[in-house]
């Protein structure tokens, strides 16, 4: 499976654009595709013309119904009829359709609770960052500005630490 052009997640949406009568395809994950489509008024100069026709092939429901998880063999249609997934990999295999569903159910698509201590050390700390940012948001919402300022400092120093730990992170596409 192709990787998202903007981040390292699997690309589940393939946006085809016609630029100067040339067909170009952009491979994106659900999250990045949504922000790409919503930002069409201020296009990234590297990317394609926003005025071009857009076809989101991945969002076609009939096509999605026939997607089968290579890991457990469940089809998206089977999931839709029984409401139960077949294996953990389905969250990736059916990502394009599941993400809007999760957004609908939970109002969010990013976990920020507990995580297993066995997760690799660096990803665990990346994860810590997600959690702290989430806490920051609720502090700001609760108008607890002093606590928020303290937390913001903590986030910044953790970001610096993580950047020093992982020089290879620069290889990734900026997000």
């Amino acid at each position, binding site marked *: 499976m192709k990787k998202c052009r903007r981040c390292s*997640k699997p690309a589940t949406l393939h946006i085809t654009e016609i630029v100067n009568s040339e067909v170009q395809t952009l491979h994106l994950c659900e999250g990045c595709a949504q922000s790409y489509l919503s930002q069409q008024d201020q296009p990234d100069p590297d990317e394609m013309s926003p005025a071009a026709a857009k076809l989101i092939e991945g969002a076609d429901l009939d096509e999605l119904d026939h997607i089968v998880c290579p*890991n*457990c*063999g*469940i089809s998206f249609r089977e999931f839709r009829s*029984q*409401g*139960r*997934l*077949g*294996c*953990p990999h389905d*969250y990736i295999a059916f990502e394009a359709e*599941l993400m809007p*569903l*999760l957004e609908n*159910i*939970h*109002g*969010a*698509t*990013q*976990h*920020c*609770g*507990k*995580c*297993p*201590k*066995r*997760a690799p050390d660096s*990803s665990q700390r*990346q*994860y810590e960052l*997600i*959690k702290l940012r*989430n*806490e920051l948001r*609720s502090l700001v919402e609760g108008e607890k500005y002093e606590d928020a300022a303290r937390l913001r400092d903590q986030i910044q120093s953790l970001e610096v630490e993580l950047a020093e730990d992982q020089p290879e992170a620069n290889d990734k596409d900026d997000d």
Partner: protein
Amino acid sequence: MDLETLTHKSGEWLKGQGPESDIVISSRIRLARNLAQYPFLSRADDRVRVEIEESLGQKLIDLPLKKPLSYFKVHTLENIDRQLLVERQLISRELSDNHGSRGVVLSDEENVSIMVNEEDHLRMQVIHSGLALDECWNEIDRIDDLIESEVTYAFSQQLGYLTACPTNVGTGIRVSVMLHLPALVVTKEIQKVFQALHKISLAVRGLYGEGSQAMGDFYQISNQVTLGKTEEQLIQQVKEVVPRIIFYERQARTALVKDNREGLHDQISRAYGILKNAQTISSEETMHLLSSVRMGINLGLIDDLEIPTVNELFIHTQPAHLQKIKGTPLESGERNVARASYLRQRLSGRHPGEVN
């Protein structure tokens, strides 16, 4: 602990102790977890189910938790024994009705229940009497850590703990509080409470399942969202709303007493009288009358009966419990007679286990 012993005793969470226990029956937190290397149960054949059940079962019994722990292979139990565990709130109906290899670990006090091969590979819960969510969280969090040191959970950085149903993904947590709200039911204000709860995306269910008509005026309030918030935030959301509901229930009770003390006292005394004297009584009527009596004790209108006894009667008058206590299968009509007889004995101060 065997199931015969279990039938005659009652769980710690029915003791009617703990904060706000006149209205809050129990607090419960459950976590859903799956093993990374197996498919979810909808795609697990019999062989895989056996493998999961056997390896997890052994690991769970060996956990360094407060002993003794009992492990039941649920697929080997009789129907009546599975139903007993459901009535006791120790296993879900789903685990009882599933097929294939499955099990449950129980602590002697009935606070801890860890189900294997339910909707997810693991469903673990801690339950306590009264409003005690922090206690539940501390214990279940520790149990989860202990299990995690033995297995690899299905987990992703983005979506958290991966579950068979997308409604549980993320934290996999269900935080719930069981409330007794008879006055809000009588004054018909309960609908307003429900509407307010739905607005902040909390779910309300009656006792024993999803039905809208709550048995005995018991309502379970729980979170619906599991993704995008921390466990603490989700617990906090339930913790914040419960005192408000308790306040409304107390207000409604005060209003009932103020408006018509004699009428209320009469109705509660009649309920108590029927329970002490009936010769045949259905489960529904029993629940309804016990609910009045329970409120009567809390309002000081009945003074010769304890809350823990009433809490226990709600459970012990259920069909499977009655049949286990009687030691024989009973048809519905026979159960109504046995139920009335059991209630008479318990409410006259004699325990049915004692020699008559």
